[in-house]
């Protein structure tokens, strides 16, 4: 690789050809402020439209300032990152940006966690000249079940567009209008709900301002907890415990399972349960379905649909309903853990505590925004009453905990309630990419072969590579497994299946980078991939420390089948724990 020598702020450095000024400066420990630029290293996710012009620097011999995020270095380049010309330009550009941005930071969901706010502080903006007569661009606020778009706050960084188009290949968001009226949204200024949006929430996860936020349900939860006639129970998804601590200043990757349970109990939830329990249940159903299809396939049944695809991720479910409806009989029919939990809670558990369905409120804490949409899908309601009443994100939970004056750092560790709070390590690893299929393998292997697994850690299924492949020996039967995180990567595997070229028996798909730990409802990673990796490690740590690490050995799962469901794929299971998918593809007719 060719090397290039250059000088930045009087310091010399040698970097590889093709390096940008921004990256070269970073190697020297020189921080150039960036706003639209975003790089999730190792995940191949980079946004550098060169649009905000905050990162401009002075390059000797060049007439105008250069955007450091997208200008490659050249031999002998001399760069000044903080000359007065640069400082004046940066501050003036920032004043431009702020002059077209609402000043309602007091009530903005992003306040305190906003890249734009941080940048205004860093650049020392104290006033916006001419604000009193500056016209602001205004748009209608778009409310969807998961995501709220307030484009008055859009600064055209295009990160959401990049995530939606390049990474997820969903294509719901793109720039519309031009000049001062330009913003990012669905085509023809449709509402998100009418677009192909899957509610994966990755646009929200990367938005530097309050233009894209989640639909907040904390007020509904407060109301439910204040209502003496209701029993309110809560379930917490596996990825939440690996990230919640970050909101309280803890190191990324700190596990706060016990403290989280403690906080939820102090918030007044009558029972604190675990979605991991439902994850174990998912493995029983999905694993059985996999074995069922596999057995039929191996005995020569040509009709059976393989590979089987996981169905825990609601954004992924939306994705294939929109883009691959002709393949909707391929994914497992198993509902997601959130919905399995809700269905069991409002039947089996409601009976146990002699509470009527309508008096039981199920709240879920999710790393995900698509879960909000999933919870209100019609299939998951009985007479209009949803199995899961409110789904709130990790961020929303953090707000609630802070609002209740609870300090997560000092709370004691407490255990989940029984029976729906007991889980195996297999349920925990649902929270990271590759975890669902590893959990399924642990159970399916033992059920299929009748033998005990000697080693439970399937390292070949772990990691952050976009698409991973592994073959697991099921006692002489090789099972080919595929894993994809990110819908763009999933699309590649689906195209293979469509073309009849797929070599897999089972595929796990998660919409978000890194799986649920990188979900749209998690504490903001501010484009630091190491945070996602630390969360994944925490998940595997929790698994390793669990006394039970296989779903089918969870005693409360065994009991649930004995007392209520019968066996996996039973009629009752089918009714409560499985679902059907719909064709959501549509053509836009141009008249």
């Amino acid at each position: 690789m060719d090397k290039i020598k250059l000088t930045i702020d009087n310091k010399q450095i040698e970097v590889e050809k093709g390096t940008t000024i921004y990256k070269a400066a970073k190697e020297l420990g020189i921080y150039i402020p960036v706003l639209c630029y975003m790089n999730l290293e190792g995940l191949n996710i980079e946004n550098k439209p060169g649009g905000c012009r905050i990162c401009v620097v002075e390059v000797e011999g060049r007439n105008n300032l250069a955007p450091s995020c997208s200008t490659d270095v050249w031999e002998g380049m001399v760069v000044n990152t903080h000359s007065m010309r640069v400082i004046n330009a940066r501050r003036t550009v920032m004043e431009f940006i702020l002059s077209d941005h609402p000043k309602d930071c007091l009530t903005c969901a992003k306040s305190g966690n906003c890249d734009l706010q941080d940048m205004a502080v860093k650049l020392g903006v104290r006033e916006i000249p001419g604000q009193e007569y500056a016209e602001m661009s205004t748009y209608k606020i778009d409310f969807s079940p998961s995501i709220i778009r307030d484009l008055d706050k859009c600064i055209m960084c295009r990160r959401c567009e990049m995530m939606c188009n390049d990474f997820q290949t969903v294509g719901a968001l793109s720039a519309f209008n031009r000049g001062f009226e330009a913003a990012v949204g669905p085509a023809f200024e449709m509402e998100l709900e009418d677009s192909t949006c899957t509610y994966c929430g990755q646009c929200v996860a990367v938005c530097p301002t309050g233009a894209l936020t989640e639909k907040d349900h904390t007020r509904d939860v407060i109301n439910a907890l204040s209502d003496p006639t209701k029993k309110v129970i809560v379930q917490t998804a596996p990825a939440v415990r690996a990230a919640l601590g970050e909101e309280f200043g803890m190191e990324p990757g700190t596990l706060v399972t016990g403290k989280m349970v403690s906080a939820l109990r102090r918030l007044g939830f009558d029972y604190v349960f675990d979605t991991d329990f439902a994850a174990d249940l998912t493995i029983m159903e999905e694993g059985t379905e996999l074995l069922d299809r596999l057995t039929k396939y191996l005995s020569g049944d040509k009709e059976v649909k393989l590979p089987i695809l996981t169905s825990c991720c609601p954004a992924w479910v939306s994705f294939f309903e929109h883009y691959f409806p002709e393949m909707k009989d391929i994914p497992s029919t198993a509902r997601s853990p959130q919905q399995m939990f809700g269905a069991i809670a409002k039947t089996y558990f409601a009976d146990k505590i002699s509470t009527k369905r309508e008096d039981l409120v199920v709240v879920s804490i999710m790393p995900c925004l698509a879960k909000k949409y999933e919870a209100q899908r019609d299939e998951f309601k009985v007479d209009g009453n949803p199995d899961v009443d409110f789904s709130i994100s990790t961020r929303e939970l953090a707000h609630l905990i802070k609002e209740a004056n609870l300090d997560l750092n000092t709370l004691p560790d407490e255990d989940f309630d029984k029976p729906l709070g007991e889980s195996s390590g297999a349920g925990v690893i649902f929270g990271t990419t590759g975890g669902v299929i590893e959990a399924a393998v642990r159970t399916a292997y033992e059920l299929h072969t009748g033998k005990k697994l000697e080693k439970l850690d399937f390292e070949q299924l772990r990691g952050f590579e976009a698409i991973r492949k592994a073959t697991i020996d099921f006692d002489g039967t090789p099972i080919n497994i595929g894993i994809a995180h990110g819908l763009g990567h999933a699309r590649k595997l689906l195209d293979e299946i469509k073309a009849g070229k797929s070599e897999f028996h089972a595929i796990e798909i998660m919409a978000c980078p890194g799986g649920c730990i990188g979900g749209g409802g998690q504490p903001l990673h501010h484009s630091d991939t190491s945070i996602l990796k630390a969360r994944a490690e925490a998940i595997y740590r929790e698994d390793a420390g669990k006394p039970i690490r296989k779903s089918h050995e969870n005693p409360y799962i065994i009991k649930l089948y004995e007392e209520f469901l019968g066996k996996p794929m039973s009629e009752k299971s089918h009714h409560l724990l499985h679902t059907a998918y719909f064709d959501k593809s549509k053509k836009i007719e141009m008249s």
Partner: protein
Amino acid sequence: MTNLGGNKMSRHKQIRIALNNCGVIDPENIREYIARDGYLALGKCLTEMKPDDIIREIKDSGLRGRGGGGFPAGLKWEIAAKNQADQKYVVCNADEGDPGAFMDRSILEGDPHAVIEAMAICGYSMGATKGLIYIRAEYPLAIKRLKIAIDQAREFGLLGKNIFKTDFEFDIELRYGAGAFVCGEETALIHSMEGLRGEPTIKPPYPAESGYLEKPTNVNNVETYANVPIILRKGANWFNKIGTEKSKGTKVFALAGKIKNVGLVEVPMGTTLREVIYEIGGGIENDKKFKAVQTGGPSGGCLTEKHLDTPIDFDNLVQAGSMMGSGGMIVMDEDNCMVSVAKFYLDFTVEESCGKCSPCRIGNKRLYELLDRITQGKGEMEDLKRLRNMSNVIKDTSLCGLGQTSPNPVLSTLDNFYDEYVAHVTDKKCPAGECKDLMTYFVIEENCVGCTACARVCPVGAITGEKKEVHYINPEICIKCGACEERCKFDAIIVK
């Protein structure tokens, strides 16, 4: 027929190279083009010249891009030729968008084959077999004539396979633009052709390395191509004798504004502004006083009396604080308010910014707002400093040529007409009498006979007065429409 300035336009001092055939041949008949040595250059290139020879000839000619940037065309071709790829493209930028400019349209309407021939030559020299003309859909006649010309060229074996019985094949397709000004920027143009949003991207990579569909692409504008066949016919040494040291050949300008003869002129580089305005253009309309000339369209600047003897070429115009641009030339007289002129151009750039980068998207809007306030008499001296700072930062930080030049009208008027800005700000007066908000209509008592005609025509009832008595205009009600002034037969109403 193409408007070439009518009969009044003097041919004196003009040389026709790009417009050589315009108005002379029937553009819908390829035989007429061939009769004037059309396709001779292509034949010569394919049968007698190697690609390198052609590129050298174009380089030697000193031909620079006529779209605005003035980049040496031969060098562009050379870079595209050197980049190896399975497919390359020759693109013609016919997205002419400067207000009042119609050089390219005239060439395409009057001499479409010159462009087709040049594109084929370019294709041969760089190793491309496909040509694309990106043309605004608002140019229906140019599109029609191009289509006819392409069909005829195919019929005559001048496009398609085995052109002039050689192995060379080349064909051209049209791509329609929706009239966005920014799509004249080559990267935005390419994105638009690809079906993407017409937005510029940062260069490098240059189109010559990675352009249309990420293949090496040469983008030149219509007028640049129109110069190519004649250069190859008559030789680089013929061409480079015309013009100045660093700007060779001629330039077509669309002369407009307060000038007696409006229309297209083609003059050798090095002609002075005075010669264009007074000798070719016939001087200022109604023999009023010349005030300024705006060159380079919205990206250019306003030049004054002291620049009139500047020889026009790429570098001189930039040095004077304006630019060549694609060839717009608008002449202004003493009645033009320079703050309003700057505002007019900013209004255009605000409308035409794609919105991708913040200084152009928001900064230009803020510039416009400030200018608007000044024309309304709401400006302060501090605002003039802000105008300059904002302008400099927008130029310094914008992503593409649009934002990098959009403040030029503001900066050049600040430089050359600062007193006029000050008059707006401190005296709350518009010396040119163009800013309505700064004007008041008065009745001159001595002249008023009390005929009541003004009061009757006033649409808002601002004028009162008894018959045969002096009338009064209430400035609070007056909307400054000027109807009274126009109606008064006694010169009793004036505006100050």
